[in-house]
């Protein structure tokens, strides 16, 4: 039972630090989600444009993001964007004070981009499976384009895209672990710090794995409930009753 003392929440135990790390992990995932969802939807909309230029832009964005290791994307954002931003700022106004990109913000941008790259494909697939007749009917009775999107397309998109987005959310939670490599004090990094002090790698990494596992199982359960709710009024195959 000696190992339990390493995980206690008081004094010399690492339980409270790990819990704090978990908070950072969840905050990071939660902050990246809206960025990724919105950006992904925008890229998907761009990919369905008539202009070939926009379509090409959208396609190359999602291909590039999906072809790069998440770790590399993260390094590029963390080391690159900070420098680029500051040189841009200096170029615009030489006397400007420099800005800084915290590991947290770099993580949000990188994970948001990754989520956007993958989710744009999910959004696009959902969009293409919408019933064209509904859109035409709405246009025929003179509903404005934005209203059509808000009242007819978006609610159905959300239902159709939910399973795909759910899987991406779970990947996102797991990808947050990578941010530990750029010194954000998330769950993974706190475990590393604890190992450095206690020299008990197996214990701490096993605990961390179990915590991630528990979160993922919890999310899977919640997503299943959400899908059930979104699909009420539909048959199991998802076709209209």
């Amino acid at each position, binding site marked *: 039972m000696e190992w339990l003392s390493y995980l206690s929440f008081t004094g010399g135990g690492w339980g409270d630090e790990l819990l704090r790390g978990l908070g950072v992990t969840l905050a990071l995932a939660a902050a990246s989600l809206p960025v990724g969802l919105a950006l992904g939807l925008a890229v998907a909309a761009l990919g369905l444009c008539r202009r070939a230029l926009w379509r090409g832009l959208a396609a190359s964005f999602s*291909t*590039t993001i*999906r*072809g*790069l*290791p*998440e*770790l*590399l994307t993260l*390094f*590029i954002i963390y*080391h*690159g964007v900070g*420098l680029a931003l500051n040189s841009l700022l200096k170029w615009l106004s030489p006397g400007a004070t420099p800005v800084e990109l915290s590991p947290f913000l770099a993580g949000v941008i990188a994970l948001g981009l990754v989520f956007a790259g993958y989710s744009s494909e999910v959004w696009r697939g959902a969009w293409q499976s919408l019933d064209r007749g509904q859109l035409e009917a709405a246009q025929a009775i003179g509903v404005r384009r934005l209203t059509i999107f808000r009242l007819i397309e978006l609610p159905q998109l959300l239902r159709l895209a939910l399973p795909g987005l759910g899987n991406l959310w*779970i990947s996102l939670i*797991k*990808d*947050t*672990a*990578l941010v*530990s*490599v750029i010194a954000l004090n998330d769950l*993974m990094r706190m*475990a*590393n710090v604890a*190992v450095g002090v206690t*020299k*008990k*790698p*197996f214990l701490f*990494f*096993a605990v*961390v*794995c179990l915590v*991630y*596992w528990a979160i*993922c*199982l919890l999310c899977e359960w919640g997503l299943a409930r959400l899908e059930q709710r979104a699909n009420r009024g539909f048959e199991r195959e998802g076709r209209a009753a």
Partner: protein
Amino acid sequence: MIDILERFSGQLLSGAGLTLQITLIASLLAFCLSLPLALLRRSPSAAWRWPVRLYVSFFRGTPLLAQLFLVYYGSGQFRVPLTEAGLWWFFRDPYYCALLTFVLNSTAYQVEILRGGLRAVPSGQIEAGIALGLRKLELYRRIILPNAYRIAFPALGNELILLLKGSAVVSVITVLDVMGQTRRAFSQTFDLSVYFWAAVLYLLMTTIFVLLWRRLERCLTRHLHCRSAQPGKRRGLFTRLSTGVAP
């Protein structure tokens, strides 16, 4: 930018070799392991099903980085028993630790993909096989498995790409793959173009892989494309692979 490429191209290419090597070996081993496990996963007995289910759920529900640390640094804590069991030479090497982790991880994903493939085999075909009096082994060999693998093929390709990209985490345990070489070069020069070239290299690897996989897929599903195949001279495997569709 070009001077960085000139200075580090050798290292980056040797890194790419290592990345491809780890990915291919791990995915091949996982490919072999996934079939028996997927069959167990569909077993009617819960005692067989549940261990596989737990294993798959664990490796799909935890970050690859955490798994790698658990295997690499975790095993260091058990040096004495591992030495006594004659296994320490294996765990001593970061390359083998990474390989083990990737095999375990990829097997879990492939089991899940294959399970979906097995479930999607049209029941009419299986029934037809039974009606013809095929034995269980024949049934699997001639009807169920070819169908299941064809259905699972695109998803298996995606999993391979995920593994290729995921393998970048080995740089954290001192293996010098593309990412490891890149980080080493960056720490020497602090020049961001190193990351640019690494990105180009990864994109090249994934793009070539996607194109190859599509070719292979067309080749595997050629019976669905050309209904009126002309009887002609037999072509070698290579020609068939490189043209995709047998004319």
